Each structure stands twice: as structure tokens, then as C-alpha cells.
């Protein structure tokens, strides 16, 4: 039976708003089935996963700490995705930012440098990420190369570069050859917001980014040109918006925010450079951006939800001995459900009558 997807012109705002809710419900149902199959009480599992982490001051802080890189990167990605530029390499831009920012921390190590070090590191971090993000933008504009491929490939280049640095020139001389840098001086570390816990100043930067992005995307000509470049490139060209500038612009913003997330993470919770500085934030942030429907506030909510699946997943491992893979399956289900819900809201499946398959 031949089926066809047909675009719907008038979609009610209600249906639009309901799509993520339906997706979340589908995920819960799939999750419940999975728990039953694994032999766990689904109600208890969901409580440990999603409710208990919210009832404890420490895990609440951790939730925010875990969500903040996803949030920063996700907002950057929303600039790209709104313009139909597919930056898959935020992970690499994150690493590039962390590396360039850390360079200053290592260069000033032990020098009793002033409080200017951290702000300068943040600037360098954003710069490093932006420069790394501009490479796929340049390749697309100049040679028409697919930014999906080039940005992804550059992730591995950045990771191997970091690997080389921490095993080679930036290795802690007192560290018995182990691959890690010295721990940063106090002036190069993110200030903590509270006495107890790991809530650090980077969270405020992430929240500022939400406000700024909401304004830029929603209320300015720049935001409009990005939107138009994505939804109607020809119209954008007629309106006089330069396609190349949009490409460079969105990749620079996206890279800068990812780089900022990288240096905040290194100067915050980690406190030194090491071979692994991200558990895949750059990729998980893609889910956050999609789940948040490319809207900064939506991404804020989505980042918190994703962070909750991680932290809940750890709690489930600790108290129910649930395998780690369950968390992965959860996230995957959520993404597929949201994409499917999206399609089903915007399109209608119709049976095509009178024709047969070629």
C-alpha cells in the first residue's frame, strides 16, 4: 500500500505544543516496558530516575552543573539549525575552546597572575571554538563541501590534538608520565556559587546566553535573516541577505558557545586538562537543541531533562543495579519519539490511491 507524507499548511499551535508531550509519554511507555522486561518495578524505577534526584539539594546542583554545557552548546546549535546549517561538530569546537583557554591557564601557572586570567581564558575559549567552527563554514562557502561531514571529522582532529598535548608538551612534569596537565591555579578556576557542591559561575553565563539568544533570535534582523535563510533561502537572497555571511555567522556563534562550554567545564568541575574532557556533550547537545525545538528556553528545559536522565541513570545503577545502557536507550527513544512526533504534526500520512509502486 503506497503511502505518502503530505505537508500540512495550517497547524494549530496546540498540536505544535503537544508534540513534545506526546513524545515524552511514548518514551515513558517504552521505558516502562523495558523495566518490566528487565524485571524491575517500573514505578520504583521511574521514581529513582526522575523524582528522587529532584528532592535533594546536592543532586539539584549536579543537575544544573550537568545541564549547563548542554545548554550552552545547544543554544549555539540552534543558530545553525535554524539557518539549515548542520553543525554536527560541536564536540570538536568544545575541545578546541577548552584547549585554547587552557593554554593561558598553563602559561600563567605558578606566576601569581591576577584575577584577569579567568575572564581572558573565557574569551580565548570562545575564540578557539569559533575558529574551529569557522573551518567547516569556510569549506562550505568556498568549496561547497558538506558541513555535516567536515564538522564531524574535525571533532576527531580536535580530540587527537588534545590527546597529543596532554601526553606531550602540556603534561604535568611531576605526574609520573600520566597524561594530564597540572591542576589549574585558583585564579584560573571558575568561582563556586555555593559553599557546598559544585555549582559554579559558568551557570550564570549559560543563563545569560539563554536571554541573549532569545532576544537575538526573536527580536532582531539578524535572527530574522537566520530564520529566513533556513526556511526560504531564495526569499532570503531576494531580500538581500548574504547567504555566506549567515553561514559564517551561525558557525561562529555556535562554535564560540561550544568553546565557552569547553573552557568552563575545564576551569570548573575538572580543574585541569586531561585526555577526556567531555562525555559526549557536543553530541548530546544536538538532542537538547532538537528537543527544545531550537528555542533557547526550550533548550534550557531540554538540557535539564537530559541531565536528569544521566543523573537518574547513575542513581538507578547505584540503587537498582540497572545497566548503564538503559540511560542510553532512554535518550535514544526520546529523540526518535520527538522527531517522529514532529513529522506527524507537520505532515499527514496519506494513502496514495490509483498508483502502484514503480
Amino acid at each position: 500500500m503506497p503511502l505518502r507524507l503530505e505537508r500540512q499548511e495550517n497547524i494549530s499551535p496546540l498540536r505544535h505544543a503537544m508534540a513534545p508531550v506526546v513524545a515524552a509519554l511514548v518514551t515513558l511507555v517504552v521505558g516502562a516496558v523495558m523495566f518490566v522486561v528487565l524485571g524491575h518495578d517500573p514505578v520504583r524505577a521511574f521514581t529513582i530516575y526522575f523524582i528522587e534526584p529532584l528532592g535533594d539539594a546536592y543532586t539539584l546542583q549536579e543537575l544544573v552543573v550537568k545541564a549547563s554545557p548542554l545548554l550552552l552548546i545547544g543554544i549555539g546549535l540552534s543558530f545553525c539549525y535554524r539557518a539549515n546549517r548542520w553543525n554536527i561538530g560541536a564536540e570538536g569546537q568544545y575541545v578546541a575552546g577548552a584547549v585554547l583557554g587552557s593554554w593561558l591557564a598553563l602559561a600563567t601557572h605558578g606566576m601569581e597572575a591576577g584575577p584577569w586570567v579567568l575572564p581572558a581564558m573565557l574569551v580565548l575559549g570562545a575564540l578557539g571554538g569559533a575558529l574551529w567552527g569557522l573551518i567547516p563554514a569556510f569549506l562550505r562557502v568556498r568549496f561547497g563541501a558538506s558541513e555535516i561531514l567536515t564538522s564531524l571529522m574535525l571533532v576527531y582532529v580536535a580530540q587527537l590534538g588534545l590527546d597529543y598535548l596532554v601526553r606531550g608538551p602540556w603534561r604535568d612534569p611531576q605526574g609520573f608520565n600520566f597524561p594530564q596537565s597540572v591542576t589549574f591555579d585558583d585564579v584560573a578556576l571558575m568561582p563556586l556559587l555555593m559553599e557546598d557542591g559544585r555549582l559554579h559561575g559558568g551557570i550564570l553565563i549559560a543563563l545569560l546566553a539563554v536571554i541573549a539568544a532569545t532576544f537575538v533570535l526573536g527580536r532582531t534582523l539578524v535572527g530574522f535573516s537566520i530564520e529566513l535563510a533556513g526556511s526560504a533561502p531564495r526569499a532570503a537572497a531576494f531580500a538581500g541577505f548574504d547567504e555566506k555571511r549567515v553561514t559564517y555567522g551561525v558557525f561562529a556563534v555556535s562554535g564560540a558557545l561550544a568553546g565557552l562550554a569547553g573552557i568552563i567545564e575545564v576551569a570548573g568541575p575538572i580543574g585541569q586538562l586531561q585526555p577526556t574532557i567531555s562525555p559526549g556533550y557536543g553530541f548530546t547537545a544536538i538532542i537538547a537543541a532538537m528537543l527544545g525545538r531550537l528555542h533557547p528556553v526550550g533548550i534550557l528545559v531540554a538540557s535539564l531533562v537530559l541531565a536528569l536522565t544521566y543523573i537518574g541513570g547513575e542513581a538507578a545503577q547505584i540503587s537498582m543495579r540497572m545497566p548503564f545502557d538503559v540511560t542510553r536507550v532512554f535518550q535514544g527513544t526520546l529523540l526518535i519519539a520527538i522527531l517522529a512526533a514532529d513529522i506527524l504534526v507537520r505532515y499527514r500520512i496519506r494513502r496514495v490511491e490509483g498508483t502502484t509502486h514503480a
Partner: protein
Amino acid sequence: MRKILSMAVAIAAGLALAGGAPAQAAEKLKAAWVYVGPVGDFGWSYQHDQGRKAVEAHFGDKVETTFVENVDEGPDAERVIEQLARAGNKLIFTTSFGFMEPTLKVAKRHPNVFFEHATGFKRAKNVSTYNAKFHEGRYVLGQIAAKTSKTGTIGYIASFPIPEVIAGINSLMLGAQSINPDMKIKIVWVNSWFDPAKEADAAKALIDQGADVISQHTDSPAAMQAAEGRDVMAFGQASDMIKFGPDSQLTAIVDDWAPYYIERVQAVLDGTWTSTDTWGGMKDGEVVMAPYTNMPDDVKKMAETTQAAITSGALNPFKGPIYKQDGTLMVKEGEVLADKDILSMNWYVKGIDDKVPGQ
């Protein structure tokens, strides 16, 4: 904004307290393990989990254990360890080098919890470190390899150029040279502890270059399977991998953490736990050789003799004279290399035709 945040957190904290702190369970010691890989890696993490199971079997009702697997050596590690400490665990084993700083940070906040960090070098009042002298086993492997290899070339799949791995390569080579001074070694660095695809590729590349005995310092049985497929010999790593290479495994160095774990849990139960640095070897039962298989009886006999000599202390793999690659005498005749020099080793012994990465 900061105020709002802290208020929200404070309110949540109040609610959590009002809900009542979790009741203290009866006098049961809670112990936890943090693994870098999956417990099903049949290597490093698997063996630590075997140790955990041994603790459960030994202490029964007196101990309750838990574990978290697949923990990244990044920002997540600190949270996992913190959560375990907050969940009431009194003894926490963090079993990968990259957990060193997170362990120390959490330990500072929980002075009444005991921490044990595997393979690290930083300690605190409530943080011990432990490791095993796997290089003792590698000396035996070197001798077996020299006896069984027809091409005179050993293939070595190495993970990271850290002292423990370098010392392992050196020890294997010293063992091989004690039988055949002309033995050659080819080394491939895969820059990972656990990456079955890369490990298998490395094994195939080494076999293509003429190596007919494969040794590895990575955690999966992939290299053993590759060796089995190509009819060359290999040594298992961390656990007995005979079922992955029934016709290829000569022996395996098995990490047996059970004696150490049982001893440490007992110390906490007795109230005698103190911060220590433990580096056990064959003598302590931490480095165990899997059965010697797929080799002639005389080779087996030699291996058993060497193993017994190392266990009794009569033989030390790092006994002088030992020369560095460039011919510099590093250990004089009649002396042995000090533990601290093994733990910071970053040079190859003479006869290894390769370069330590990053040196």
C-alpha cells in the same frame, strides 16, 4: 539570579530534610566500586567486579556492595563518587587512574568515608592507593615467548605510554632476552584501555609484520580472538581468556583483586583501616598466572620454575645489570631497580627497537 538559585536550592534542601533523612540500616558495611569500563569487558573492570563478588561471598550479610560501570574519567566521575558517598557507602573503590583527582576531592568532603584508588599515586588520610606488580607476570610471558616464537618477534599491543605499561614492556623483554638475547619486539599503541576493534586491528597488523606471539596491555579479548583466527600464539590479559583462544592462549596474567578487597573490607569492619599504599605481586596472590596451555612440557616447566622463583623472591625481573636503549647502565650488577623507579619508568631497555611516545 544567584540569589534566586540559592534560594531554590535552599528550599529544596529544606524539603529534603523535612522528608526525613533515610533511616540508618543495621550494622551493615556498605562498600561500592566505580568502574571505567563495562563489567562485561572480560578484562580490567570484569576482574575488579570478580573481586567485588568475592567480597560478597566472603562476608555474606555483613557487607552490602554496589557498583557503577562505564564511568567516564571526566567531570562525571566526581559526581558518581560523591553520590556513592552520600548513599551511605563507607568504603569506596575507584578503579581507574583517571579517578584520582575526583576521588581526592570527594574524600576531602567526606572525612568519615574510606577511599581506595587503584593505580594512582596521590594519597590522603582517608585515601589509600593500590596496584599490582603485573610486570612480574610479564617476565614469565617474555620467557615463554622466546621459547615458542619461530620468527623471533613478539607483538605487543600497548595502551598508554604510562610507567606501568612501559615497565610491562621492559619486563617482558628482559624475560625474553634471558632466553634469547636476539628477541625482537614490535609495539602498537592503541591509546585506549578498551577498544575491541582497534585492538583486533593492532593484532592483525602485528601478525602481518611477522610477530607470532601476541601480548597485550589492553582489556578486551579481541586480540586473543584475532590470534586464534590467524593461528598464532597469544597471552591473555587481566582475566583468563582461554575460551576466546582455546588453541592460542599460552597463559594469561590474571588480576586477582579478591585477597586485597577482602583484607580492606575486613580492616574497615575491625576499625583498623589506615591510609596505605599497596603494591602486591605474585607473593601476595594478586598476580596469578592462568594455566600454561598450548606449549611443550619443557617450556611449561621453565615457566613454572620462573613463577616460583618470583613468588619466593629469589628472582626479581628488574635485577641488574640492566641497560637503557643507548647503552647507559641503569641498574648495576647485583642490585634491583627501586619501586619508585619502576613506578616512574619512562625509558626502554636495550634491545627494544622503538621509541617511547612523547619522550
